[in-house]
Every structure is written in structure tokens, then in C-alpha cells.
């Protein structure tokens, strides 16, 4: 891990030894760790890890920072640490308005309510197919057997790429996001860029009706996208829908494995599933983005300097006791308004409607086929991982298949 010197304007009492890739071990519950941190630490602190970052550590500050794209810019990178120059910017997320807004148009339309009606049919077909394979086995390793596979299959359908390369891409995507060595992550990103680049050339030469064709052939500010823009955009679309949805599916499933009352209730009352998903999104949010401070300013009572980098971790929002009462408790009827699992403001997740549909379909179909299941401690139990997107790397499950 690259370490930075502490800049002169950072007060000593706000420096913490925080590395987002290692701050919890694989046997530790990452949201409980955030719960300890957000309810005991300062609202904003500085870590020398990953090149030096401020870290927001309070729900209200997070909610104020997320939409404030003028103070906290995304155009110089949202990575922790930022990607090297040879990796094209991940668009549209690594861009500021109005360019960002213009770029988002085809994505917004594809992932609109009407777009998702069609995508949800594919999602249900893939979900049912995978569960029907798993259910008779009486056990599975959920992450490998379901939550890494299903979102990747859906992405490949959306962009009309055959699923032969699924395992290769799952490996790359996993390393690109979760790799604990910076160079490993960047190498995986480079390989993914190269893979998508070939498909982009085909879609430019012969556009289809898929999402990749719509994106790579769009105009922005009256000109076509450059190759770097096309590659950066498609990489984001691929990564954006994999790890995030898969991570939420795994955390949802872990919650259901540990809470028989909840899974029985939802099985008998599937109409409550959408409310349950909102509560789970609140309690188990997973994404962290980084931004750049654009001007000297005071934020949360602390002086920031132009050029400072800052992390906006959404996992802390739902576990901040100053924002939610009994924050760790999952109440299926809590109906939380304004959780930050999808962010807020202009950069809010464009895939939110699809993500909710995937989670809803997953719970409906899984609970119908595998109503009772537990975590298989004999196969090592739950393994957590942290990073820009936190999640589970192992979730062995067991149930009675007879």
C-alpha cells in the first residue's frame, strides 16, 4: 500500500490508520466495523493510506457530500487510489456535469422503467435457471454459484455478447475491484478494457439494438465518442452492474440465512419484498467512491484544501445511530426514505431500478424453491471482503433438498 505524508493542513487528532482494503478481516462483519467506526470516530478523518484521503464518517455529511459535485469533483477519478493515466476514465461516473449528464442519456433510457420491464424478463429467466440447477444439490457456495454468475449473465445479454467468456470476465471483474494489490487491479482493468475494445469495434461497424451499440454510437456535444470514451464507458457499465448487485444479493442471502423469521415472512408475503429490499439496502449498503476537492473550503467544520482527495463510503450511512434508531436492526416494515445505497444527486446509480428488480426477482424465486437454508460452518462459513465495494467472497449454504 502506498502511504502519503500527512499534509500540513490536516490536524493531527484527525489522522487515523484506515486502509479500506484491509480494515476488516475476512471473518469480521464489515457493517459492524463501520457501525463501530461511524458511532465512535470523528465525523471526518484523514488516512495516509492509498495516497492520502479524507474519509467521511457521518451520515449527514455523506448526504451533503454526495450531490455536491461542484465541491467534490469526479472528473479526476473516483478510484482508491485513482487509476493510472493509461486506464481510460470510467464514464460517465468519472466526469462532471454537464458532460456527465449528456453521457448518461442512453444509459438512463436503457435502465428506465420501460427498459427494465424487458430486462426483468431476462433476469427472471436467468435467476430461475440458476436456482433450478442449485436447489436439488442441497448446498452451494452462493457467491461462486449464484451472485457472481447471474449479474454477469445479465450484462452479457444486455450487450449481446455470448456467455462463453463468462468465467474469464468474472475473474477479471473480481480482481479489478477486489484485488488488494494496486497493480493487480490496474492490470485486470487493462485486460477488461482490451476485451471490450474488440466488441466495441464490432458494434461501431455493425450496430445492433443492444445497449453497447446505443452507447458506443452516441453523440456527445455534437461529436461521436472517442475510443477511450467508448472503452471507459463500457467498462463502467460492466463493472457497475456486477459486483454491486452480486454483493447485495450475497448480503441479502446471508441475512435470510441468519433470520428464519424474515425469510418465512417474505415467502408467505411476497408483496412485502420491495419494502424489505429497501431496508436491506439501507442496512447493508456497499459502495465507496472517492472524489477531489475543487477549492479550499470548510466542510463539516474542517478545512479542506483544493486537490485533497476524499472518500464517500455509503456503508456507514445506514449504520449511523444519529440517523436511524437501532440502526443495526433490520425491520422489514421500516420503509426507510433516503438511504444512500444508490448515492444521491447527479451521480446517483443509473441502475437502481434494474438492481431492485434483480433483487426482488431473486428473493421471490429463491424463497419459493429453497425456503429454508443455513450457513454451512463446516465449509468455513461466511468470508467478507472490503474495498471500494464491500461484500462476501464466500457464503457456503446448506439445506434439505429432499
Amino acid at each position, binding site marked *: 500500500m502506498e502511504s502519503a505524508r500527512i499534509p500540513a493542513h490536516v490536524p493531527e487528532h484527525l489522522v487515523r490508520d484506515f486502509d479500506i482494503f484491509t480494515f476488516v478481516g475476512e471473518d469480521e462483519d464489515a457493517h459492524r466495523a463501520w457501525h463501530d467506526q461511524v458511532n465512535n470516530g470523528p465525523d471526518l478523518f484523514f488516512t495516509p493510506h492509498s495516497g492520502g484521503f479524507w474519509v467521511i464518517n457521518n451520515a449527514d455529511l455523506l448526504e451533503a457530500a454526495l450531490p455536491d459535485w461542484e465541491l467534490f469533483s469526479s472528473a479526476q477519478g473516483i478510484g482508491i487510489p485513482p487509476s493510472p493515466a493509461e486506464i481510460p476514465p470510467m464514464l460517465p461516473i468519472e466526469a462532471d456535469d454537464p458532460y456527465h449528464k449528456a453521457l448518461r442519456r442512453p444509459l*438512463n*433510457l436503457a435502465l*428506465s*422503467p420501460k427498459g427494465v*420491464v424487458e430486462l426483468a424478463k431476462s433476469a427472471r429467466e436467468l435467476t430461475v435457471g440458476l436456482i433450478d440447477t442449485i436447489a436439488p444439490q442441497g448446498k452451494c457456495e452462493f457467491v461462486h454459484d449464484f451472485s457472481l454468475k447471474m449479474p454477469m449473465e445479465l450484462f452479457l445479454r444486455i450487450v449481446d455478447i455470448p456467455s462463453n467468456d463468462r468465467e474469464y470476465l468474472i475473474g477479471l471483474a473480481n480482481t479489478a475491484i477486489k484485488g488488494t494489490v494496486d497493480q493487480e487491479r490496474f492490470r485486470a482493468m487493462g485486460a477488461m478494457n482490451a476485451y471490450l475494445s474488440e466488441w466495441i469495434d464490432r458494434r461501431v461497424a455493425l450496430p445492433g439494438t443492444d445497449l453497447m451499440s446505443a452507447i458506443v454510437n452516441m453523440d456527445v456535444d455534437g461529436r461521436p465518442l472517442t475510443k477511450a470514451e467508448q472503452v471507459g464507458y463500457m467498462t463502467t457499465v460492466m463493472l457497475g452492474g456486477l459486483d454491486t448487485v452480486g454483493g447485495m444479493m450475497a448480503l441479502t442471502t446471508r441475512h435470510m440465512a441468519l433470520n428464519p423469521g424474515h425469510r418465512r415472512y417474505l415467502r408467505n408475503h411476497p408483496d412485502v419484498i420491495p419494502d424489505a429490499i429497501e431496508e436491506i439496502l439501507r442496512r447493508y449498503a456497499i459502495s465507496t467512491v472517492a472524489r477531489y476537492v475543487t477549492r479550499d473550503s470548510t466542510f463539516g467544520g474542517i478545512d479542506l484544501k483544493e486537490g485533497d482527495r476524499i472518500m464517500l463510503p455509503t456503508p456507514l450511512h445506514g449504520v449511523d445511530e444519529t440517523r436511524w434508531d437501532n440502526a443495526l436492526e433490520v425491520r422489514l416494515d421500516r420503509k426507510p426514505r433516503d438511504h444512500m445505497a444508490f448515492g444521491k444527486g447527479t451521480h*446517483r446509480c443509473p441502475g*437502481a*431500478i434494474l438492481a431492485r428488480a434483480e433483487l426482488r426477482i431473486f428473493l421471490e424465486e429463491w424463497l419459493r424453491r429453497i425456503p429454508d437454508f443455513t450457513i454451512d460452518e463446516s465449509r468455513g462459513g461466511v468470508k467478507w471482503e472490503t474495498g471500494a465495494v464491500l461484500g462476501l467472497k464466500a457464503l457456503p449454504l446448506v439445506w434439505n433438498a429432499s
Partner: protein
Amino acid sequence: MVRITFVQHGGAEHEIEAAPGETLMRTALDNDVPGIIGECGGELACATCHCYLDPTLLKDIEPASADELDMLQGAIDATADSRLSCQVLVTRGFAGTRIRLPASQI
């Protein structure tokens, strides 16, 4: 303030006080009117605040921008009377109007 009525697809009505200058979406959400989601918070990015306005009223107010028309293509069951309520500002002319909501936003 002007009194306006939101009419759910099933016929249920919510008559509320709306402040001129406020968006229709914010007005509905602040009054707990069901049937409008407003997923993106008014960024013109999601089409989940879709509503149908009275055609006479529609002619009197600021027309939809090109970007709104673009995004309306993503709404379910859009018609010529459709608007995204995050882009519609309440005016005095809204007094007594009935705003119909679609069967589903998503």
C-alpha cells in the same frame, strides 16, 4: 397555495395544498401521495415521477424540454398528456386541476 388533486390509477384521490413554484414531484412526495417514486430526486434521469396532466392545463404551461421528452420514452404507458412531474412547476393555474397517475411507475 392552490388545491390540486392526485388521482391514482385505481381511482383513489388525494386532494392537497400545493405551493406555486414547487415541482409537482416534490409536492406529491412531501404530502405522502403514493404512486410517484422520484427515484433520481429530480435529475431527469429515471422517469419514475410520471403523471398525466389535463390537456387544457398542459397547453397553458411551459412545454416539456427535449431532454424531458427523451426521458419520457422510458416511462411506462406514456401518452400525449404525459409529463415527468419533477419538471413541472406548480402555478396558480393549477387550482382545481386533477393529476392522474399511471398504473405503475416501474
